[in-house]
C-alpha cells in the first residue's frame, strides 16, 4: 500500500469516527514525548551505561548517558506529534517522522531497561540474535498463514498444526531413535513436516470439500491437536522414559561467521533456524514470481474470475493449504527438536496465534510477516532479558510477568499507528463452489 492510498484510507475513516488515525498517533507520540522529557529523563540515573557487542571478558561496546538518549527520543516524539497537526505543506514529513519514531521505540526500550537496572552493561548483539532465533517459529507460522489466506482459506489452526508436528515428530524420534541418533533426528523432522501437512489436509478437506466454516475448522484442528499430542505424550513418549536427547546442532555460515566481534554471534545457528530464511525467501519467490504463485493469489482475491480463466481453484487451494501445513510442521519440529529436545503438552504456547498477528501486522506479505515475527521475537527476547537485568522503579522491583508482557504492549501500540490499516485478501474465508 502506498502512502497516498494510506492517507486516503485514514481520511475516509475520519468521516465516521471523528479523529483519524494520524491525529491519534500524533497524540500518542505527543503524550509519550512529554512524559519522556518531563517525567522519565529527570528521574532515571545519570550514571553512564554500556551496550556490549560480545560476551565478557573485556567486550567491545559503546558507553552512553541514558538521560541524553531519553531526551533525544522524547524530542523526536514531540516533533512527530507536531508534524501530525502541521499545515498541509509540512505534512509530507509526517509519515517518515512517524516511522522513525516507531523505530526509535526499540532503542528507547533498551536504554530504559538498562538505566533502570543495577547492571551497568548488556550484550545487544546477543539480544538481537535471540530475537531472530525466537522469531523462527513465528516467521514459519506466519508463512503458513500467508499460503493459506492468500489462496482464500483462513487458517487459525496454525497453532494446532505446529503442535501436532512437534508432538508426532518427537514421538517418532523418541520411540525409534531413542532421541539420540542424528540420522533418526532428521527422519523425525521430516515426519514433523509431513504431520503438519496431514493436519492441514484435514482443514483443507473440512473447509474446501465440506464447506465447513473455516474458523470453526481451525478451532477443531487446535483442539484435536491438543488432545492428540497430549494422548501421545502420556501413552507413548512417557513410556519410553526419554525426557530429553540430542537436538539439532549449531553451525556457522562460512566466511560470515568469521567476521570479528559480531560474526560468531549472528552467523551461527541451528538448521531449522536457517531453513526459516530459505522458506521466507522461497515463499516470496514462488508467490510473487511464478505462474503458480499468481494463481494462488488470484484464488484468494476472486476465485470466480480465476475459474473463468481455467484455473482450478479447488486444486490450488488444496495445494496451498497443504504446503502451509508442511511449513507449520517444520515450525513444530523447531520446538521439540531444535529449541529444546523434548515434548511437553501445549509446548507451542500460542506461537501459532502470534504468527497470525505477525501475518496481519505484515499486511499479508512474506517480508512484512517476517518483520512482524522479528518484532514479536524481539519483544519476547527483551522480556526475558529484562528479568535477568532486574528492573527497578524507585526501589520497587517490577514483577516478571509484567516485564514479559510490557515490550509486546508498547511495540504493538506504537507500531499500530505507524503501520496503519491492513487489508486481507478479498476472498479469504469464503467457500468456493464450482459452477455446474
Amino acid at each position: 500500500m502506498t502512502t497516498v492510498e494510506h492517507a486516503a484510507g485514514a481520511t475516509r475513516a475520519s468521516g465516521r469516527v471523528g479523529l483519524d488515525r494520524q491525529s491519534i498517533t500524533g497524540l500518542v507520540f505527543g503524550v509519550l514525548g512529554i512524559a519522556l522529557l518531563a517525567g522519565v529523563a529527570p528521574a532515571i540515573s545519570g550514571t553512564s551505561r554500556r551496550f556490549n557487542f560480545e560476551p565478557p571478558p573485556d567486550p567491545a561496546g559503546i558507553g552512553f548517558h541514558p538521560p541524553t538518549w531519553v531526551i533525544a527520543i522524547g524530542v523526536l516524539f514531540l516533533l512527530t506529534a507536531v508534524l501530525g497537526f502541521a499545515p498541509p505543506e509540512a505534512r509530507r514529513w509526517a509519515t517518515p517522522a512517524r516511522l522513525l519514531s516507531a523505530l526509535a521505540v526499540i532503542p528507547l526500550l533498551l536504554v530504559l531497561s538498562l538505566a533502570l537496572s543495577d547492571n551497568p552493561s548488556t550484550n545487544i548483539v546477543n539480544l538481537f540474535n535471540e530475537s531472530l532465533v525466537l522469531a523462527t517459529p513465528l516467521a514459519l507460522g506466519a508463512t503458513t498463514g500467508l499460503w493459506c489466506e492468500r489462496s482464500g482459506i483462513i487458517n487459525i489452526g496454525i497453532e494446532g498444526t505446529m503442535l501436532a508436528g512437534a508432538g508426532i515428530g518427537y514421538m517418532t524420534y523418541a520411540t525409534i531413535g531413542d532421541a539420540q541418533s542424528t540420522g533418526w533426528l532428521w527422519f523425525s523432522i521430516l515426519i514433523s513436516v509431513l504431520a503438519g501437512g496431514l493436519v492441514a489436509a484435514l482443514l483443507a478437506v473440512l473447509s474446501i470439500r465440506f464447506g465447513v466454516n473455516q474458523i470453526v475448522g481451525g478451532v477443531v484442528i487446535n483442539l484435536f491437536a491438543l488432545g492428540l499430542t497430549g494422548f501421545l505424550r502420556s501413552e507413548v513418549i512417557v513410556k519410553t522414559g526419554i525426557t530429553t536427547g540430542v537436538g539439532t546442532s549449531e553451525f556457522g555460515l562460512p566466511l560470515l561467521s568469521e567476521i570479528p566481534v559480531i560474526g560468531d554471534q549472528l552467523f551461527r545457528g541451528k538448521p531449522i533456524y536457517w531453513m526459516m530464511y530459505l522458506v521466507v525467501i522461497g515463499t516470496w519467490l514462488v508467490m510473487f514470481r511464478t505462474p503458480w504463485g499468481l494463481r494462488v493469489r488470484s484464488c484468494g482475491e476472486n476465485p470466480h474470475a480465476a475459474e473463468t480463466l481455467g484455473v482450478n481453484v479447488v486444486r490450488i487451494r488444496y495445494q496451498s493449504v497443504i504446503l502451509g501445513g508442511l511449513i507449520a510442521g517444520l515450525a513444530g519440529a523447531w520446538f521439540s527438536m531444535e529449541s529444546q529436545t523434548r515434548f511437553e503438552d501445549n509446548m507451542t504456547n500460542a506461537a501459532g496465534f502470534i504468527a497470525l498477528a505477525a501475518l496481519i501486522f505484515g499486511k499479508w506479505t512474506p517480508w512484512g510477516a517476517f518483520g512482524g515475527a522479528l518484532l514479536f521475537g524481539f519483544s519476547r527476547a527483551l522480556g526475558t532479558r529484562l528479568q535477568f537485568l532486574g528492573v527497578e522503579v524507585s526501589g520497587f522491583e517490577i514483577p516478571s510477568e509484567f516485564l514479559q508482557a510490557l515490550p509486546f504492549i508498547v511495540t504493538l501500540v506504537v507500531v499500530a499507528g505507524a503501520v496503519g490499516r491492513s487489508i486481507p485478501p478479498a476472498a479469504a474465508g469464503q467457500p468456493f463452489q464450482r459452477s455446474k
Partner: protein
Amino acid sequence: MLEVEGITKAFPGVVANDDVSLTLNQGEIHCLLGENGAGKSTLVNMVFGLYRPDQGIIKVRGEEVHFEDSGDAIDRGIGMVHQHFQLIPVFTVAENIILGNEVTKGAFLDLDSARRQIDSLAERYGLAVDPDATVGDLSVGEQQRVELVKALFRDADILILDEPTAVLTPGEVDDFFGVVESLTGQGKSIIFITHKLREVLAVADRITVLRAGRVVGTAAAEGATQQSLANLMVGRDVVFRVDKAEADPGAPVLRTQGLRVADDRGVETVTGFDVEVRAGEIFGIAGVEGNGQRELVEAVCGMRPTAGGRVEMLGQETTDWSPRKINELGVAHVPENRSKHGVVAQYTIADNLVLNRYHQRKFSQRGVRNTAAINAEAQELVEQFDVRTPGVDAFIDTLSGGNQQKVIVARELTGDLKALVVAQPTRGLDVGSIEFIHRKIIELRDRGVAVLLVSAELDEIMSLSDRIGVLYRGRLAGTVNAADATREELGLLMATGSSEGQR
C-alpha cells in the same frame, strides 16, 4: 464458427434453456436478445464451459466439443467478457491478463514480454490499456478493455460479450461499438448479449431472440424494427411511448437551496444544487453518471450528511433528518443500488415488502410481528404489482432483478405519499418491467405526488419528465421543459454544462 444444436439445461425448478439452437458465422456480430431470465447467460455459460448442458451438442469449427471447464473453451479459441467483470482489483492489468495463461521465462513469470504482447494487442485493436496500472483504480470502461484484451491475449476468435454496454456511459458505448467493428473487421466473430433494442439495431448482423428459455425467432438485422423485436421478446405488443396527460403542478413539495454534499472520498460532488419540485409533476435529472447524482439523492433522503445548504419538504426543513423521519413525512425513495439499499437479500418477499412499516401497529404488537397481517398485505401487493414469484415466503434473492425492483416499488409506493425520489428505476430491467414501472410513476404523479427522477437513460428522462434539469459537476446546468427538449440539446448540456439552449 460455432454451432449450438438443441441445447437443454435445467436448474432445480426451472428449465433455463429448452432445445436452443444457434449458429455463429465467421466475422459476424450475432445478437442474443431477450428479457432478464430468458436464458441468454445460461446459454453462453455453456458455450464457455462454465455450465455443462443436459442435452444437445456444441460444435466449434464443425467439430463437436465437450467442455469440462472454461480452460477447455479458451483452448478452442472462445473468449468471454462477463457482465460482472471477472477481474482481480488488486492485480495489475498485466497480471490479470496473463493469469491462467502465464508468460514465463524458466520457472518465473516474464512480465516484460507480457507487457510487450499486451501493448501490441492494444495497438492492433485500438484498446488502450496500461499494463502496469492496478485494475481497481481503472474506470469501468477501462476495465472492460482489459477484459477484451484478456480474451484476445488467449487468441480467442469467438468472443462472447454478456451485456457489455450495461455499465457504460453513452459516450463509452459509442467507443465500444467502434472497437467491436474493428474486431469483426479483423475476422473475429462475436456473440453480443443485450436487451437494449437500439444497440441491437446499431451493431447486429443477425439476431436471435430468446423467450423463457426457447428461441422465438432468428432474423437478419435488416428489416427488423424496435417494435418487432420488442414484441418477440415479450410475447405481446409493447407500447414504447409513455402515454400521459398534461401535468397539473401544484404547490412546491421538495426544495433544495445551495445543497452541498461530499462523496465517500470526502470530495464535494454536489456543489450548490437548487431545485424545486412541485406536487403533481415529474422533475427529471439528466446527467453523465458521477456528476453528483448518487450523493444528491442520498442527501435528500437522509442517507448521507450534507456539507452545506438546506433541504425542505412540505414546507419544513428536513436537512440531515434520519431516513425514517423523512419517510414518515410521506417521502418514498426507490434507491439506485437495488441490492445494497433496496432489499435485504436474506429476507422473504413479505418481510421486504414491509421493511418501512414493520414497526407500525398493523404489523407488530408489543414488539412481536404479526406474520398473518404481513403476509396478507404482501399477497395483496404482489398481485397488485404483478411480481412473478412462487410465493410471498420465497427469499427475495431468488427473484430476477425486474421482480425485485417491482417489490421495492410496491413497498415504496404504498401509503400516503407526498413525494417520491427515484433513482435509476429501470436499470437492468427488461421492456415489460420498464413499461410497468413507468406506468406506476405516472399514476402517482397524476395523484398529485411530486416526483424527483434521476436516471442515466436519457430516453427514460425524456419520456417520463415534465421538466428536465441537467446535473453537471454537482449543480444544475440548465432546466428545460420536457415538451421542448431535444436529445441534442440535453446531450450538449450533459457534456459541457452549458448550451445556447439554456433558458
